[in-house]
């Protein structure tokens, strides 16, 4: 059996091992949400967040492109009102609105035969249909991580794309090496999903969502 961590706890665990995550915070009230948004800078995203909440989009628990404090306060109040008793302790996650045309996917997966593996690939809603992914076994060297990017068939997506800069390969490599470090240091981690990993106009990969699954 396994259990999942909340998005905020997932990101905190990953960040401890060098996986870059956005500057974001979890707050308890609508007023705190507005204050956090002012600190982070607009526009922001607000999401209802809790250990038991795994399908935020399907439940309508995500508010995108909030442009000022009033909008944030209203959205946070509404999200907190949507929490059900089954959700347990909840908060509102305020994060910068990360935008980019390209989406990658990265993660950890325990393979039945070879043990813990790291993956990177073309992400987003079509990830499973496209299946342009590359796996390696943990532990992972930087060279291994660079090779993974060369494996992808859709390599043109990693270069300059529709007015956006080339993907900063070093940052993707940092992220993959960080994921492998999670697997080594946290043996109770069963899987990690970073999907999507939005590539900003500057080419930086940002994990806008994260789900860590732990053995329990």
């Amino acid at each position, binding site marked *: 059996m396994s259990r999942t961590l909340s998005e905020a706890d997932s990101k905190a665990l990953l960040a401890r091992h060098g996986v870059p995550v956005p500057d974001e915070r979890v707050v308890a009230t609508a007023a705190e949400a507005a204050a956090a948004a002012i600190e982070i800078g607009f526009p922001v995203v607000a999401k209802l967040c809790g250990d038991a909440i795994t399908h935020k989009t399907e439940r309508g628990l995500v508010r995108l492109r909030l442009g000022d404090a009033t909008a944030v306060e209203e959205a946070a109040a509404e999200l907190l009102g949507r929490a059900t008793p089954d959700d347990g302790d909840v908060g509102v996650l305020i994060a910068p609105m990360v935008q980019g045309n390209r989406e990658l996917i990265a993660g*950890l*997966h325990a*393979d039945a*035969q070879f043990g813990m*593996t790291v*993956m990177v690939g073309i992400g987003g809603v079509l990830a499973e249909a496209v299946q342009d992914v590359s796996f*390696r076994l943990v532990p992972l060297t930087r060279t291994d991580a*660079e090779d993974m990017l060369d494996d992808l068939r859709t390599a043109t997506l990693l270069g300059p794309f529709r007015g956006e800069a080339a993907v900063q390969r070093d940052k993707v490599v940092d992220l993959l090496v960080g994921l492998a470090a999670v697997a080594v240091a946290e043996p109770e981690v069963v899987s*990690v999903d970073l999907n999507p990993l939005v590539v900003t106009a500057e080419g930086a990969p940002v994990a806008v969502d994260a789900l860590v699954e732990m053995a329990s």
Partner: protein
Amino acid sequence: MTPACRSVERFRPMFDPSGVLVAGASTHPGKFGFVALHNILAGGYAGKVFATNREGGEVLGIPCATSVDDLPDGEIDLVFVCTPASANAELLRRCAAKGIPAAFVTSAGYAEAGEDGRAAQDQLVALTDELGMVLAGPNGQGFVSSPSSLCAQIVAPIPPPGRIGVASQSGNFVSSFMNYAVQTGVGISRAVSAGNAAANGVADFLDFYAADPETAVGLAYVEGIADGRAFADRIRSVAERRPLVLLKGGASAAGQRAAASHTGSLASDDAVFDGMCRQHGVTRAATVEEAFEAAATFATQPLPRGPRTVVMTTAGGWGVVTADAIARTSLELVALPDDLLAAIDEHLPPRWSRNNPVDLAGGETRDTIPTVMELIARHPGVDSIVYLGLGIQSNQGRLMREGPFHPDHGLERIVAYHERQDARFAEAAAAISERTGKPILTATELAVADPDNAGPAAVRASGRLCYASSNRAVTALDHLWRHARWRQRRGLALEPSSAS
């Protein structure tokens, strides 16, 4: 002593024995005990050959002892076991008492035969451990060892000697690879069917090949792998010392499983296995011919230092298709540097392509092909050459030779000239490759359509592979470059040490 050295010494009596005993020799030409003895003798094994069976007598001129006890001491290193499983424990004890250090067991009735068989196999392993014997099999089809001219197998063929080391979980794939060796002339150093792999499996034999001066490249077929991590570590250690080509059965089995995570649902067995191979420098081939041709290329060509590839052709269309094939790989169809363009201009009429592919456009005189090939190969901006069009002249020559006018009208002379030229081009490709340390791959369908054509025949005589199509040459070259790049990125020497 490194582990590799230990493994060399452990398998040495099996692969290079001073004498071989066929236990269970039979007078019936349909039985393993006859076929094994026949193949050992037909293969020209230089050491002493002994045989035992219950009745005594003689098989194929070899007198059969009724007991191992009656054989001389210290003259036998390998027992090739063709007796029923039930007789083997007693047999192996007597062999050990004679000082025989290695056994290849063909007998069936072990782990492949259910519960009782599994128990018998465990006892077999325990017994050979206790006796200090190296055990291959059981239920294996045998092995070949070219340096000792030893064909200790119950299947065909006898491959030409060479530098490819084969290890397989399936005996029939050993035959397949060896059949390709016979067809192409690119030969085999050792080849073993691991059978049930009770004590020694594919990874153990590959470990031996990685330290074997006679073997330049490993070629393996695997299906099930008991311990993925251990297997991965073993084959990485092999790939660091020798190129290793792997063909895996069951790639599509299991496939995607229902998983909680997106990552998990994308983690097919095949995708993970593929990543494991790439991470560990192992060349994974999709088909049996691709596997053999990759291994044959590793065995006979230097590793490229980079991806920059030039296609050299005597006709336009072939070059275009080959350029397309290169575009699908990690290789680069390099733009011809200006100084190279100028140098080639000196030797070709103005209508040549002045581009890569280098299309000679029928402008060649007697020496053009070797001259231009050497110019390209010597250029520091070029890493590899794919050469197309070999054998055209001899193909016309054959038509003339077999037509109604030969040998009159000057046909005898022109046919001989055509054939000399094609042989020369093939020899030049091998010699220039050797001089420059760069791969030069020659591709023509005549390699299979008319293997006796002077062009492909001369490629075979040079010890190299004549590729049946340019895309197969490109696929093989891509495998070489990927392995070379893996070594470069990890600071490993491009030329693996010849032995340890």
